[in-house]
């Protein structure tokens, strides 16, 4: 009797919980949601102008791959991996010429910043999807493990006061910041459209919160007027403290993917 009950229970469970394995390559663009805002102030003849630059750490084009397992066409678990393929951008503030300007005061950074943040992400997610004819919509949620290497290249004019006269020093500096995998939160909202029985076109909107923590920072390159200054620096490592340890990589991303379901059952 017990065996019969177990068999009946197993056959009932097996009928309703058939799993379906799927794979989904994707490509997308992410927009930094928490850029680091810096202000530079320039006062010329008592007229003040404030410049604002935004350093966007999570922004760029990335490739993704999802490996998932769907239960009863509703619940699913997924392993989401992403790698950035383009994350290079430049911001600049017009540099004041302190030699020609009279009655002038400048505070903050003036010059060009080239920023690149190469990111790898892994996110185990759980979700639920609702199907209606050929369309489906889903929400998924889980931790986001992110690792980033940031290369920041600065080009600016430093000013040296010599004999009551300002002399320009054309400076190029490159910093590299890196850290371990840092945990944040990821949520996705998406729409799917079945092209064929096994194939689905997926439009996905990702929200990632990850205030990335760096563990290492180093000056990789330093030159003034074309002459390397790296040998003149005693220690190229930069001290990491409470105020500079975080580089916010949070973003909103749009992804387009193709989902292939193995041995799909209707």
């Amino acid at each position, binding site marked *: 009797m017990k065996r019969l009950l177990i068999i009946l229970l197993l056959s009932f469970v097996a009928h309703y919980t058939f799993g379906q394995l799927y794979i989904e390559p994707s490509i997308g663009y992410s927009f930094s*949601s928490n850029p680091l805002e810096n202000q530079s102030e320039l006062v010329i003849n008592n*007229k003040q102008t404030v410049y604002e630059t935004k350093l966007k750490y999570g922004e760029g084009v990335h490739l993704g791959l999802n490996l998932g397992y769907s239960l009863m066409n509703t619940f699913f678990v997924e392993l989401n991996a992403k790698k950035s393929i383009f994350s290079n951008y430049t911001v600049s503030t017009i540099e004041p010429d302190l030699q020609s300007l009279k009655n002038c005061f400048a505070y903050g950074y003036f010059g060009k910043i080239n920023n690149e943040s190469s990111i790898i992400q892994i996110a185990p997610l759980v979700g639920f999807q609702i*199907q209606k004819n050929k369309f489906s*919509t889903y*929400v998924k*949620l889980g931790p986001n493990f992110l690792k980033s290497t940031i290369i920041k290249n600065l080009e600016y004019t430093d000013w040296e006061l010599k004999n009551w006269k300002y002399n320009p020093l054309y400076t190029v500096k490159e910093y590299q910041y890196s850290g371990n995998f840092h945990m944040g939160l990821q*949520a996705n*909202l998406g729409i799917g459209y079945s092209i064929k029985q096994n194939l689905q076109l997926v439009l996905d909107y990702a929200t990632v919160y990850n*205030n990335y923590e760096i563990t290492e920072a180093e000056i990789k390159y330093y030159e003034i007027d074309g002459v390397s200054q790296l040998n003149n620096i005693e220690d190229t490592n930069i001290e990491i403290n409470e*105020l500079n340890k975080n580089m916010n990589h949070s973003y909103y991303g749009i992804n387009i993917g193709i989902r292939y379901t193995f041995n799909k059952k209707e």
Partner: protein
Amino acid sequence: MFPKIFGQREIIFNHKAKTNHFINKMNKLLLLSSFLAIISQTISSQELYVKAASFHNFSTNTQPMPEYFTFQAYLGSMEYDIGLSVNDFSIATGLNLQGSVGYSFNDFLSLELKFSTFSNSKKEFPSFYAENRKTEWDYHNYCLLPTILFGQTFKKSTVSVFVYSGFGIDKLNIIASYNSIYSEYELTSNYNFSWGYGLEYNLSLLKNLSLFANIGINNTNYKPTKAKLISSSYSMEYMETNQKEIEYVDEIINLNSYSDRHSPEIRLREKLGLNSVYSGIGIKYSFFKK
């Protein structure tokens, strides 16, 4: 002859017109009855409902604390700017109460209008530089959030994916202090913008009554337009307008750096992001449910 022919034509035209009018009327009746027939088929699954829920928001992101004002302390005859920097700053954790009115078109599609109120629970932020310097942030917002829900029903329970966005108003008070010296500012903004999405699980208890649980993410952006000093450990009577009022603007270009003492101080507007994940439970009452 002419008037007779004209009269016959008139009769024919009138007859044709009457026939056309009758056909038009019939067509309209046919269309209306078809429409009603279609509606009556789907109306059985339509319902109007109200919801009340309580959620808790947990902050998912931090940012450097916005410098909405400079906190000054007068020690003797000297004036000092007190740094209150905090790197891991967020006021997105707190209680969120919601009430909503919704309409289900069928088992799959529903629309809701949510009224949401939020108050932050973590209010005190000690300065990075010293423990006796801190700020206290008291934030409230009231939002109207149109929401769309896509649901799937399994016997007595329904699971829905929902998406919302909307606008609201805020109230923010900040107290900055250094030992017994303090200043309290009241900040005003035009509006805030919120959006989010998540999952809802609904379990039917009685014919018209059901219990639901939600999990989702919420994002609210706040940008102040003005700030006003409302209380201080110093006498405000002798303070100038630029010491008591701040105006936040999107850009500062060629501004007279010697600010007018009788005008508010001008600062760049800084964004405060409230990013959170939330969960909670609520109750739903459906009217006219069949």
